[in-house]
């Protein structure tokens, strides 16, 4: 709100230009700029006439006009209708007050600045929302590798979340995670443990969300086919190169499929097989969350309270909406075509997480189909894995916590030195862990909830009927909202990241 006010003042101040004077002198009346606001006539005796309405009579060699006659001291001698003999004139002078060229440069930066502001203000539903973000070291420097409990948008929805720190390799026994609040949210972080699992060389540890499995023989698909064509290269590794698509024009719940073909499984004997999927959501869910809050407007608090009381409408509506939006279904071929054996779902558009789907015991697969909402997911990597056995992690709580508070909301608060930690926009904490020395797989197990801040723009958009549709008939709502999302979709990613409140 304050920045909007400042923006308004900038726009209002922009016309208050900076000026220069362009002065021209001439001994001849014929060459004087007749469009000038006033004419200054310097007399041979030092007097000066300043005429705003004037005309020259070349025949009579006189100039007449209305204005002031000033003496050599430049005080007014006479005022009104005046007449000047051309023979007594030394010089004619005109002045133009023009806008400084500096204003053009300021206009460019003001325009760009206003465009950035308007972009975010006009489209707050694609603005940054994050839940706690965790940055962990990697070979390429600190990487945003986890966003904690993204579903938990009220105390009643408090949950825990296990995120793989796939790109972090700790060998010296020391790990520091950076936890930040980068959005207009209040985060309540009750737990932020690291789960460490020692692993032999050539293996990885994967999480189903509830279980950890030691996995070997990670094999990327040798062929990937989707609506846009070949996607094999995009899914080859966890490297930030993602396969994604655009949402359906008419229904945000519309599905698409990706067909994967793996090399023949050369294992002898038993052992289970799994599919590892590294992915994150697109911004559709962010849009829907914010659109829902905007539609609820001033009644949003009542609906959240309904969630607290486990009211059926809010609960069922939320669950049904999540089901319609859908995760990534893993399908295997069967006699009837394709059968879904498991589904991967985790809310959050920021950090790529690695999920494990455990296939039915004894099943060997070469062909796998992924079924997912169009435009709903960004998939970085898929691999078929051989699962050895479940493993029990070593749970490690932070041994030291250091924090800084965001300046804007620091008043009356103190930095937390132990969990639970309540953060406001701009807060950042460093969490130190003692990790077992050696080759270990690391996960972050966070628990808590967060409160989304209502934006003033959302309150102005309150649409009770649309809100009711979103919760009571989400299938219809996803069709109704498709055009609105399609208008945002081309620029949503850019707007999302550019609207971040804070950055690490």
């Amino acid at each position, binding site marked *: 709100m304050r920045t909007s006010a400042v*923006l308004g003042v900038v726009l209002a101040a922009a016309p208050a230009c900076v000026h220069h*004077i362009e002065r021209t002198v001439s001994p001849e009346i014929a060459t004087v700029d007749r469009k000038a606001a006033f004419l200054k006539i310097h007399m041979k005796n030092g007097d000066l006439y300043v005429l705003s309405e004037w005309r020259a009579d070349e025949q009579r060699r006189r100039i007449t006009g209305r204005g002031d006659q000033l003496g050599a001291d430049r005080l007014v001698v*006479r005022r009104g209708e005046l007449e000047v003999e051309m023979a*007594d004139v030394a010089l004619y002078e005109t002045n133009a007050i023009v806008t400084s060229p500096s204003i053009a440069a300021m206009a460019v930066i003001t325009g760009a600045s206003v465009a950035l502001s308007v972009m975010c203000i006009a489209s707050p539903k694609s603005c940054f929302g994050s839940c706690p973000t965790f940055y962990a070291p990697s070979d390429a420097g600190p990487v945003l590798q986890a966003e904690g409990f993204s579903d938990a948008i009220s105390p009643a929805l408090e949950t825990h979340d296990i995120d793989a720190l796939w790109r972090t390799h700790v060998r010296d026994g020391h790990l520091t995670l950076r936890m930040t609040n980068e959005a207009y949210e209040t985060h309540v972080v009750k737990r932020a443990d690291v789960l460490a699992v020692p692993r032999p060389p050539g293996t990885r540890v994967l999480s189903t969300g509830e279980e950890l499995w030691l996995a070997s023989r990670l094999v990327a698909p040798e062929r990937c086919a989707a609506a846009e064509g070949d996607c094999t290269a995009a899914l080859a590794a966890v490297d930030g190169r993602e396969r994604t698509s655009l949402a359906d024009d008419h229904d945000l719940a519309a599905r698409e499929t990706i067909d994967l073909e793996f090399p023949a499984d050369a294992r002898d004997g038993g052992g289970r097989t799994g599919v590892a999927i590294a992915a994150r959501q697109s911004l559709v869910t962010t849009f829907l969350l914010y659109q829902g809050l905007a539609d609820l407007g001033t009644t949003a608090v009542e609906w959240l309270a309904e969630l607290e009381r486990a009211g059926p409408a809010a609960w069922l509506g939320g669950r049904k909406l999540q089901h319609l939006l859908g995760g990534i279904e893993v399908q295997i071929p069967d006699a009837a075509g394709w059968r879904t054996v498991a589904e991967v779902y985790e809310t959050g558009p920021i950090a790529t997480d690695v999920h494990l789907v455990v296939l039915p015991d004894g099943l060997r697969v070469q062909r796998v189909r992924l079924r997912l909402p169009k435009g709903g997911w960004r998939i970085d990597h898929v691999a078929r894995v051989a699962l050895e056995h479940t493993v029990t992690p070593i749970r490690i709580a932070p041994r030291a916590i250091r924090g800084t508070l965001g300046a804007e909301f620091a008043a009356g608060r103190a930095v937390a030195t132990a969990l639970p930690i309540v953060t406001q926009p701009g807060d950042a904490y460093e969490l130190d862990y003692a990790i077992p020395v050696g080759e270990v797989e690391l996960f972050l197990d966070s628990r808590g909830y967060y409160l989304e801040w209502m934006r003033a723009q959302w309150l102005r958009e309150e649409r009770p009927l649309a809100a009711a549709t979103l919760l009571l008939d989400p299938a219809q709502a996803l069709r109704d909202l498709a055009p609105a999302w399609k208008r945002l979709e081309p620029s949503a990613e850019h707007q999302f990241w550019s609207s971040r409140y804070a950055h690490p």
Partner: protein
Amino acid sequence: MPIRDLIVVLAVASGCASNPDPRRRSIEAAARDGHGGWIAVQVRGDAQFSGELIAIDPGRLWLLGVMPRAQLLTIARADVTSARLWAWETEEGRLVGLGVLGTLSTPSHGFFLVLSAPTWVIVTTLLASIESRASILDYPGDAWDKLAIWARFPQGMPAGLRDGDLLPQRRAPAPAGPGQGSNAGADRGSAAGQGSAAAPGRPTGAGGAAGAGSATDPVGPPVPDRASAADPKP
């Protein structure tokens, strides 16, 4: 440090040129009021004089100093090593104000604040520095005729004018027209050659409340070819 202070400090550090003209004339006044711009002149021997630029002719220039009292100085152009003229009071303060507001608006840019805020500060600083010099003319870089058009008398020193005529004259309230302009000047009390009402007929030509200076005035250091106040005419 507040952002505005930061911008001002940067502007100063980057070389904003402040105008020493004590009259603080607005652009509108500078365009219309008929007074000359403010000039600071460095002459041989490292003496420096400043005041309103009155006139420049092929051999001399005149300026009207005001400190500690009004004093018309005549300086031979040949003795001038450098001069700087401020034609009007520049408006870089408005740019700074706009820059401060722009910088304060950058929190609405989200992540791009890290780029937009420094951009506002840097651009504002540079433009304010440039703008502060927009009204400056420097001799010898700029020729005398370019400086001359910003003098009170761009045509050169009028013949027959006395020092005192340059200072505010006590005269009857300005009558309304119609009137006719000529060199006669017979219809007012302080016309050229007649002295002012405040100092009527002083033989040195000094007039006005403050009194114009002379060559022997202890305030003004000796300047080669500086004309005597008793003979200010070119």
